[in-house]
């Protein structure tokens, strides 16, 4: 069964001299509650693809459907987490940030604060509900961003290298936390990363993309039991397989 479907999706950029293909004829499906990672070097169009699923960019060819309906713009069925810590609103507390989407939906203050508190508990930040983002570490800010994207209960969570700007130790913690959040909420997650180990740790299935133009090189299912051990032989075998598909295009 397919929940998100990409069919022959292309996007070309017009530059003054010529048309540059950013994403070329990409097709794949994502099952409900699946954790899908898109891996590739910079310039392979993985973020562009995510932005098209989010509805911020319009494909110049092909079609994207979510739950059978074509994507025509952004919508509350999708929550988004960006890489940049600055995505949080600095003038709102952690709680205020998480409650933003509920406020836009017109949910009463008491109720949206209760929901927001639950979401903060999910990312283990209930103690920081009244802190402003500039008082939180990078990892904590990204956890607030995840809680914020989940608060209005979208079916899909779109994540664009959310942990890429964190230090390695924090990143490991965040990956374990995200795996937990996913297990509890069973959201459909599309996760873009250039980090092969991260993809093997998190994903049910990995879509490998290569650049110039951005195309799908391979789809690799990760059949490892969770929680996963990044030092196990099987884990490393999967990493090797992904790297093989990435070929000589770039370092992981």
């Amino acid at each position, binding site marked *: 069964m397919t929940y998100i479907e990409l069919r022959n999706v292309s996007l070309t950029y017009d530059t003054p001299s010529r048309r540059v293909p950013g994403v070329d004829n990409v097709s794949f499906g994502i099952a409900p509650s699946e954790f899908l990672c898109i891996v590739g070097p910079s310039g392979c169009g993985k973020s562009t693809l995510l932005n098209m699923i989010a509805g911020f960019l319009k494909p110049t060819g092909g079609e994207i459907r979510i739950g059978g309906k074509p994507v025509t713009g952004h919508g*509350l069925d999708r929550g*988004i987490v960006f890489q940049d810590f*600055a*995505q949080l609103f600095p003038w709102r507390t952690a709680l205020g940030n998480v409650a933003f989407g509920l406020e836009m939906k017109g949910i009463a203050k008491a109720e949206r604060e209760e929901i927001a508190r639950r979401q903060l508990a999910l990312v283990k930040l209930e103690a920081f509900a009244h802190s402003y983002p500039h*008082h939180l570490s990078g990892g904590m800010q990204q956890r607030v961003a995840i809680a914020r994207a989940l608060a209005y209960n979208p079916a899909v969570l779109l994540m664009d290298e959310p942990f890429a700007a964190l230090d390695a130790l924090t990143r490991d913690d965040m990956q374990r936390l995200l795996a937990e959040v996913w297990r509890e909420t069973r959201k459909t997650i599309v996760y873009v990363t250039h980090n092969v180990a991260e993809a093997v740790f998190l994903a049910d299935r990995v879509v490998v993309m290569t650049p110039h133009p951005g195309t799908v090189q391979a789809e690799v299912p990760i059949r490892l039991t969770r929680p996963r051990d990044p030092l196990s032989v099987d884990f490393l075998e999967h990493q090797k397989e992904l790297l093989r598909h990435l070929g000589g295009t770039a370092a992981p």
Partner: protein
Amino acid sequence: MSAAGERARSLRRAAVTLLVAAALYEATARSGLFPPALLPTLPAVARTLVATTLDGTMPLHALHTLTRVALGLALAVAAGLPLGILMGRFAAVEGFVLPLASALMPIPSLAWVPVFILWFGLGDTVSILIVFYAALFPMLLNTWSGVRAVNPLWLRAAQAMGADERKLFWKVIMPGASPFIIAGLRQALLRAFIAVIGAEMLAASDWGLGWVIFDAKEFLNTDVMLAALVVIGCIGFVLERLAFGALERATVVRWGMVRAAKE
């Protein structure tokens, strides 16, 4: 050191500076090098200040000046804030307004006073319009910069969470641009204050701190002039440091959008 201790120390430092300056002035005034009519002693200035305050004239002058500032500033905010936001959001508005602003901004507001007197006569209208003119450009240009400095990620995130244009404006663009808008207000107030005193000297009749200074000159009442200057300085200090300082601490400093100024 604690914040309170730091604050007390900086207050002490400021007090020392002011006392030294006052002592130097007093020594010069008492040296006999200058006629007392031109350089009254501080106690004489203080006596005049107290007397004019108690008989109600100085507060009334100050009230006139402040009313003109408030009205002119309110007009400048009412025009500059929406126009600045429109400039930041729509290239067409920016393209139309920017050349006009660039051409008018370098003209000192006081240069307009004689022209305005011919157009509007002596009185409040001229002072208020001069304040408006002086305060408009800092308000307009800071708001414009503030809107352009709003992080596009905030807009994307808000749109993804279902914010429509109106919500986007009130919940994201306004707070996002607030460091610049507050800075604009601050500059606008400073310019308004400079402009109103000048405008009152040239165009006001009977009331206003600028008029007091100009009028006292005719009668060689240097003590009155200096008393009025003290009042102007105090009002400026209170508005600038206390009002805007408090506003900034309650908003953009608390949000970490600008760093706290050293107290």
